């Protein structure tokens, strides 16, 4: 769309969104209420859901094993609906660090982490994470030792990925709620690790 100096209240994509939404409503395919409810449902999902899963895996080794074997089923056990998509949980260990990217678009485990951050969808993150992950992680403030292997997971099709970070030392005896509070969104994407405050 050409900006020829006229007052333009909407950006190109906002205008596309409004036009499409109004058309869908006009044609009776969806109602305004359904659209609002879906937006509301999307906003309700936050990284706190994923953090709850991680905390459970940290305190319950049998659950951790289930989570690594079948992520979707283990989430359902905690009452989290993962829908038709399959969740693959990848575990950080002293010898391996995992990081998730979607080079093709912005596939993301929304059911566990909510709406992806802007940078996750940026061209720079998407292209550079597969090619120079160590440099990208360093920009996030995470320097991965040369001896630690890095595994980049490109979320190209029907799987969604969650990184299970390592439980930091000094958290012995903590409750699940207290543990969940140190598991940030970035830890579960793999661009950070949990730290004690």
């Amino acid at each position, binding site marked *: 769309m050409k900006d020829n100096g006229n007052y333009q209240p909407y950006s190109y994509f906002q205008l596309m969104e409004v036009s499409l939404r109004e058309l869908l409503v006009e044609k009776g395919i969806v109602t305004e209420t359904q659209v609002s409810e879906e937006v509301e449902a999307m906003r309700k999902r936050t990284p706190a859901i994923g953090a709850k899963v991680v905390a459970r895996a940290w305190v319950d080794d049998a659950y951790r094993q289930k989570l690594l074997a079948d992520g979707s089923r283990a989430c359902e056990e905690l009452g989290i609906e993962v829908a038709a998509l*399959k969740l*693959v949980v990848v575990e950080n260990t002293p010898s391996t660090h995992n990081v998730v990217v979607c*080079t*093709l678009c912005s596939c993301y485990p929304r059911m566990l982490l909510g709406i992806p951050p802007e940078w996750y969808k940026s061209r720079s993150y998407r292209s550079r994470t*597969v*090619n*120079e*992950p*160590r440099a990208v992680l360093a920009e996030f403030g995470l320097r991965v030792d*040369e*001896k*630690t*292997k*890095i*595994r*980049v*997971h*490109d*979320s*190209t*099709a*029907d*799987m969604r990925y969650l990184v299970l970070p390592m439980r930091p030392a000094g958290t012995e005896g903590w409750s699940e709620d207290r543990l969940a509070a140190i598991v940030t969104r970035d830890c579960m994407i793999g661009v950070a690790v949990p730290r004690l405050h």
Partner: protein
Amino acid sequence: MVETRFKPGDRVKVRKAYPLGHIRTPFYIRGHSGVIERVCGSFGNPEELAQQRSGEPKQPLYRVRFLQKEVWPAYQGNADDALEVEIFQHWLE
């Protein structure tokens, strides 16, 4: 449903082809060799689904592990650094 041809540990090569359409095989990995990490199950073929067709027959989907140093000749890092990508069977040989 299409029969699953590969199992974990098998060495595979991604087809080096450039057809038009909605392809979920990234350009950067075409022509590279890796090892099957796991079989993910069978899913509707995205190239068909994007054309409003049924996506049948479903295609087996794999996670394939590639070594970074083999994908990017100038790669800097641990020699075992890896890249894992989901690839549909009809893209593997």
